[in-house]
């Protein structure tokens, strides 16, 4: 079990690294799907005790939203505005990758320093959660396009959820509900925002917005 857990966490870290180094939006969506399914399925792997029906339903809901609904929404939106083939990272490729690697190193170091009340299943669990959060933040900061920033936001929330799982929070339902609500509202609000930005300016490039004057 720990070996399998370590492999899963290493895969998540890999996905994080790829998220920062690939620039095409289509690939980002595929990566987000993989990440969502893995994080959504994590509670099923961890719990041994039988679940309550409510908790079970919530896990399925979380898996469905993270693994299917969000990527699908982003895919539909990006198809509409024909974003799929473009890259929009403000950093050169190698720099972004080196930065991502540095962040992962930092997270692995940090994960080994922090002591948790209950030790997690795998020593890589905490680094993976932290790295996912930081990668989400990096995506929001380094991408030009509004839709990529939404994607970064979803990644960030995935990371928070993974952190909740790895901390063995007693009221896990609350954490899950909290993040899911956050993301869902977030994605919808941003959907509306993006729609309005597009109506007004014909473009979703955030660099152009910074040139606006009163």
């Amino acid at each position: 079990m720990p070996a399998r857990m370590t492999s899963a966490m290493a895969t998540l870290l890999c996905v994080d690294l790829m998220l920062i180094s690939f620039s095409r939006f289509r690939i980002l969506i595929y990566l987000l799907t993989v990440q969502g399914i893995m994080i959504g399925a994590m509670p099923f792997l961890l719990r041994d005790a039988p679940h309550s029906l409510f908790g079970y339903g919530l896990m399925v809901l979380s898996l469905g939203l993270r693994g299917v609904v969000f990527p699908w929404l982003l895919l539909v939106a990006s198809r509409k505005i024909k974003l799929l083939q473009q890259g929009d990272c403000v950093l050169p490729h190698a720099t972004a990758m080196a930065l991502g690697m540095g962040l992962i190193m930092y997270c692995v170091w940090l994960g080994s320093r922090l002591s948790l009340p209950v030790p997690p299943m795998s020593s890589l669990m905490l680094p993976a959660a932290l790295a996912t959060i930081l990668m989400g933040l990096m995506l929001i900061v380094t991408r030009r396009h509004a839709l990529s920033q939404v994607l970064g936001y979803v990644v960030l929330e995935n990371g928070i959820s993974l952190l909740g799982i790895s901390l063995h929070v007693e009221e896990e339902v609350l954490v899950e509900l909290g993040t899911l609500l956050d993301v869902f509202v977030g994605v919808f609000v941003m959907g509306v925002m993006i729609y309005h930005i597009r109506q007004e300016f014909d473009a979703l490039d955030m660099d152009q917005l910074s040139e606006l004057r009163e």
Partner: protein
Amino acid sequence: MMTLMMIPICLALCFAPLLRSVINKTKAFFAGRKGPPWLQPYRDIRKLLGKDAVYSKTTTWLFRAGPLVSLTGVMLALTLLPMGSIPTLLAFPGDFLFLAYLLAQGRLFVVLAALDTGSSFEAMGASREVQFGALTEPVLLLAIATLSHHASMFSLSSIYQTGVPDIWSRAPIILLILALVFFVVLLSENSRMPVDDPTTHLELTMIHEVMVLDHGGPDLAFIEYMQALKLWIFSTLIVGLFMPSIELPVGLQCAIFLAGMGVVGVAIGLTETMMARLRMEKVPQLIVGAGMLSVFTLLLEVF
């Protein structure tokens, strides 16, 4: 014991050109063609060996030494490579550095021979070869160092024979990522598709092929054979990661090994079918990405 040790080397010497046929047949299959016959690489080499070499007056002994020295180096590298549980001819702590240096020496002499002709076209190919080589080599060393770190062993044969099964039981993901890294290194070192197109002989984009334009006859045969062996060496590094750890009869091990090589050949063929050649400035990104992955696996401490 000695005969047992010779088996992997003999397999390499006999079947290396066949690996190219596997790639060509795979590509032909997906393109709906019949492809060249299975024995075509052997026939090419035999044809070239039967010819006379022509040397330009501007070349020196370096030009003649190039193919010979690089072929010798690569053949020597074969003695270090483990296959299943068969002991290798040469094994000492740190021999993977020796492997990397032997391959680098092969590259150096091909490059020197290309520069010796005084042709600017070949010099350009040499420059590109060295540029990509300088990027690929650290990645290869880093990947093997990662394996060595996780296995806590320092010679190729002990890493592959006792370290790899151990890593499989602890964290298989490391080996899967490293297999990917080795595959990228293989593609780059052997001028396969996303890095270089082995079928374009007169394009400005080509790298390896341009350096050997002035070689002919036996020299070209040596170089072709050297490249086939090089492909074999890198494929061995990949297949070795997936060899079964249980004790099997030698014949069965050879069969599994050859089947694994076939799979790698098909994988290369598939990659070449599906991918176009990358733009020149994108190639370092691919190689650096592979390097990042191996740094990443080095980081994964498995407790």
